[in-house]
């Protein structure tokens, strides 16, 4: 039965599927059909007959050869199946990695969006006047912690699946912390007293935070290969002509004489042209 399965697989691998309509279009009204079992049977009989008819081999040797061939075939089949399984696993890993990368990219975009909101709110806070020094101290600590997290994220080299998972987790944490920071800012804004002309809020820390976050997100985006975050510098096209510019080619042209012909002079033509242009005698 095993041999029938092998023959079926071999037939499947080497055959094409054609619809009945296509066959009819080609003018075929009847087709002959043969079962895989019959093909296997024919092969087996042919091999055994060939071996049996060979008087040089005793029956025991023939049986041993047949058995050895079957074992070898089984090994080859097993190897192919292993390779197929490995290929499927690799495909699965690749898809999984791609999904994680897409998720991380999406989170990064979301993070950038949140940061812009925080930036806008910080600007608003700055214009309206901030809270007291205690609030700013708390915020300072938050900023310090966030900056540290970003540095950690930035320092991680890409991109094993495990590392991707960690990066995604870090990004999630960052998003969460930014959301917290945003909520705190909103609360602080609501609780803040009306600004007084004489009392200028200390906004330098917020500005530093915003600048720092922008710079680091820019760097991180570049590392992630997000096109919008990558500077598009001037394109240097000079290399297009590298092959043709300033290439000294070895040749013997210096020692060759070029074919020269004597031509009629152009003095008369020049004279007439000068007259025509009013510059001649």
């Amino acid at each position: 039965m095993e041999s029938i399965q092998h023959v079926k697989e071999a037939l499947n691998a080497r055959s094409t599927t054609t619809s009945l309509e296509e066959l009819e279009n080609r003018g075929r009204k009847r087709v002959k059909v043969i079962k895989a079992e019959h093909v296997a049977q024919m092969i087996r009989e042919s091999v055994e007959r060939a071996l049996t008819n060979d008087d040089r081999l005793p029956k025991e040797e023939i049986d041993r050869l047949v058995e050895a061939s079957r074992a070898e075939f089984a090994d080859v089949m097993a190897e192919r199946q292993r390779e197929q399984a490995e290929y499927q696993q690799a495909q699965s890993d690749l898809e999984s990695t791609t999904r994680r990368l897409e998720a991380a990219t999406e989170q990064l975009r979301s993070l950038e969006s949140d940061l812009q909101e925080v930036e806008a709110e910080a600007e608003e806070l700055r214009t309206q006047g901030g809270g007291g020094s205690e609030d700013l101290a708390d915020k300072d600590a938050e900023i310090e912690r966030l900056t540290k997290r970003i540095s950690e994220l930035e320092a991680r080299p890409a991109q094993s699946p495990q590392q991707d998972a960690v990066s995604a987790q870090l990004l999630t944490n960052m998003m969460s912390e930014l959301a917290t920071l945003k909520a705190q800012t909103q609360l602080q804004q609501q609780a803040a007293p009306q600004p007084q002309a004489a009392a200028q809020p200390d906004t330098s820390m917020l500005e530093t935070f915003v600048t720092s976050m922008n710079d680091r997100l820019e760097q991180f985006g570049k590392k992630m290969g997000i096109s919008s975050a990558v500077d598009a510098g001037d394109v240097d096209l000079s290399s297009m002509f590298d092959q043709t510019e300033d290439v000294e080619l070895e040749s013997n042209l210096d020692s060759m004489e070029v074919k020269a012909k004597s031509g009629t002079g152009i003095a008369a033509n020049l004279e007439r042209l000068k007259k025509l242009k009013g510059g001649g005698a």
Partner: protein
Amino acid sequence: MTDETNMADNPAEMTETTAGLCLGKGLDLGTANIAAAIQQDDGSITVNVERNAFLDIGDDVYSKKMLTNAKVPYVVHDGKLVVIGEAAFELANVFGKNTRRPMADGLISANERDALPMMRMIISKVLGEPAAPGENCYFCVPAESLDVENDVIYHTGRFEAEVSKLGYTAKSINEAHAVVFSELAESDFTGIGLSFGGGMANACIAYKSIPCVSFSVARGGDWIDQNVARVRGIKHSKATFIKESGVDIRDPQGEDQAAVAIYYRNLIQYVLKNVKDRFERGQNMPTFSEPIDIACAGGTSMVGGFIEVFREEFAKIDFPMPVGRIFRAEDALTAVARGCLVAAAIGE
């Protein structure tokens, strides 16, 4: 030697030496041949001509020394020996090969990536060093074609850069306008200049040296060769060789020559029909009170019987203006280069 003591600060504007000779060189960048016209101290003209073709050969067959001894110019490019110019054409015929061509249909060939370095070497060889820094060099360019989509802008810009790199002040001039400069002096540079080149036929109608209309058709000597090669089952280079081996298209000898004659006549009819159509349907066409001359030039017009067949075919069409003389340039191969030289010397 030219005297350079009176050169102005702007060399491009100074075109005359103390000996009264005008500086400047003319360069015909043809599909089939490259020719440079140079004025000598005694006022005579020398035209250096080289075929615009090359051929790769195996360096195990011909050593460099052998090639040099045989006066065969070569270039080593990408580790290959490349024979350039007329020798490439001759070798191709001996070995039944086709030459490679840097230009096609009058313009830089997009199919020959190796072509530009070869062409640069040929230009440098025929043109030589400038007599003075920034000497004028006028090179010819084709006009846009009536029958195919082509663009001469890249071609013009590329060769302007190439010629400038050799130390010249490079300027382009229409190929058929150059024929007007070299051949229609007696008519005060009024008439029709026709340049039958390898890749194209160019036409220019000029009045008092000023070009009124310029155009081209994308048929020339190569078109004849391709068709002869196809119908006779021979190589393109072989067809070129037959065409250039003393055929008289009024009296062809054998089937190969008959094929050449048939396609020549067809080319002439095609060009005349397009010139006539252009005159008839064109707006702002000049009106001439006197019959105008038609001057033919270019390597493709050098075949025996060309001008006679041209006159025969011209007589068959009802040309929309009176025409006086129809003639071929005394030296049709170098006429464009000489016209470019006239333009360079006058600073046109």
